[in-house]
């Protein structure tokens, strides 16, 4: 366990050395909320009360998704820059290696999401410690699920990075667009909503909104959403652990 934490700490130190990216991410978030979010809110607030809040949570969930995708990319970069064989030669189990990646992912997500979360809650006048903590837990679970999906898919990159990048772009577009990050499920047209229920972001976004006290009439059942988010996290992390253990090899050399 000590070695897993050492490995995770090493990755987190790399993360913390990239402060500029965090500042840019927060600035982009603020800009998006201030301009697009507030404009959209004025347009739709007659049907969805406090759409700015709804939008803000959706934007945070997208940030969580991007952070999870970052972990997958980080993993693939390890392989292609030659670090993966080194990490696989260290005295940690493959599961431990994956856990270190997950810790890195969680740190990445929390750093990117925490300031926007506090900002949004403060802006809408709903900032409480309890709300922030539960929202973080919800997004943390979602982040683990996304990380699991991305690491599970990373074996594609061992065949071709180009295919992996194209696959990731396509998957991101589908998972984000066909979800409730920006639109409540009840307002979606019938040809659109059945697809949305397959996106984990739908459940992560609605669960986070529910723990923050958003009107539950616009959301998926929170117990069902919590079960799906937890199930996706456990399922995809188990799958990725198996893939890392059984399938992925650090190098192919003759």
């Amino acid at each position, binding site marked *: 366990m000590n*070695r897993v934490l*050492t*490995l995770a700490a*090493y990755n987190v130190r*790399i993360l913390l*050395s990239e402060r500029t990216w965090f500042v840019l991410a927060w600035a982009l978030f603020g800009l998006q909320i201030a301009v697009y979010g507030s404009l959209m809110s004025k347009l739709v607030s007659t049907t969805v009360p406090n759409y700015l809040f709804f939008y803000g949570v959706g934007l945070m969930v997208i940030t969580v998704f991007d952070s999870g995708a970052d972990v997958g990319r980080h993993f693939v970069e390890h392989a292609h*820059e*030659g*670090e993966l*064989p*080194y990490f*696989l*030669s*260290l*005295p*940690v*189990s*493959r599961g*431990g290696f994956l856990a270190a990646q997950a810790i890195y992912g969680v740190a990445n997500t929390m750093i990117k999401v925490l300031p926007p979360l506090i900002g949004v809650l403060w802006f809408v006048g709903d900032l409480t410690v309890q709300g922030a903590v539960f929202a973080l837990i919800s997004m943390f679970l979602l982040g683990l699920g996304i990380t699991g999906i991305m690491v599970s898919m990373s074996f594609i990159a061992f065949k071709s990075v180009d295919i992996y990048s194209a696959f990731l772009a396509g998957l991101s577009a589908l998972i984000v667009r066909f979800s409730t990050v920006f639109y409540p499920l009840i307002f979606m047209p019938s040809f659109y909503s059945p697809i949305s229920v397959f996106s984990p972001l739908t459940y992560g976004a609605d669960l986070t909104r529910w723990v923050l006290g958003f009107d539950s009439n616009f959301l998926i059942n929170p117990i069902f959403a919590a079960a799906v988010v937890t199930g996706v996290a456990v399922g995809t992390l188990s799958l990725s652990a198996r893939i890392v253990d059984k399938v992925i*090899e*650090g*190098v*192919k*050399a*003759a």
Partner: protein
Amino acid sequence: METLDLSKRYGKTDALRGLNFTVNEGEIMVILGPNGSGKTTLLMILCTILKPTSGTAKVVGIDVVEEGTKVREVMGIAFQEARGFWRHKPSSILRFHASMFDIDPAKRQDLIERTMKDLELWESRDKMFMHLSGGQAKRLETAKVLIQQPKLAIFDEPTSQVDLRGKRKIWDKIRELRDQGSTIIVATNEVREAEYLADRVTILHQGQRIVCDTIPKLKDAIAGGDIVEVDFEDPVSRKLVDDLNGLGGDVSLSSEGNQLRAKVSRAEDWVPKMTSASYIAGAKIASIRITEPSLDDVFLHFTGKALVDQP
């Protein structure tokens, strides 16, 4: 360390084919083979990065597939290509490595400093990895294993890209590591490296073990034993070659232009007879060189192919 019928297949390519291979405790085993012979694949399986297609491999009696983490606790590897942490400094890379292998924190800094000085890396300790030269990066790769002092140390072409002085330093440190009790495997296609380091040599060719023994025994296995190269002032005639073949003994002659090359069992017996016969035949000798067969010759003898492709 032993492998039993170890095979590794990539698609339709067999990188290792039923390899049986043993390394004794406390020895330096050099695996000699050209590029593509399966050296790196073997090492990657031993350090649990690759999984064998079939067969078994054990390190200190521990199965590399069943108990990979335990194997990794007792072994260290210096990769063929230095593995990059592009924006990290050599000193922090070594500190991380030392912490992963539970090197006593009280001794860690001294050990790292000493090793970096020994390998002439100390001046570069605060450079980014990406700014190191190829040779420095390779020495850093070696330094990781040296600070770790593992039971089994693996070096994959440890001195490629390293200058002559650096090579000697790395070789001496590898021998020192052996003297401190580590068992060592070195994969190389450099004959000089093999000759300097090996307690025993395994020749690997097309994924198979061709032969394994000490260097003197491998050289003795070649017909002859000594190589005599004679430069004449004029082209070597057919008649002279016939005369020298008639001198008797175990001799194999080849000539090209002014040069004659003979593999003989005892040069000290054959050379006086050869000089007399040349004098009688009127062939003037310009120079004589007597050498042992090299590992190149050994490789050629056992595989029928040169170790390094001739230009």
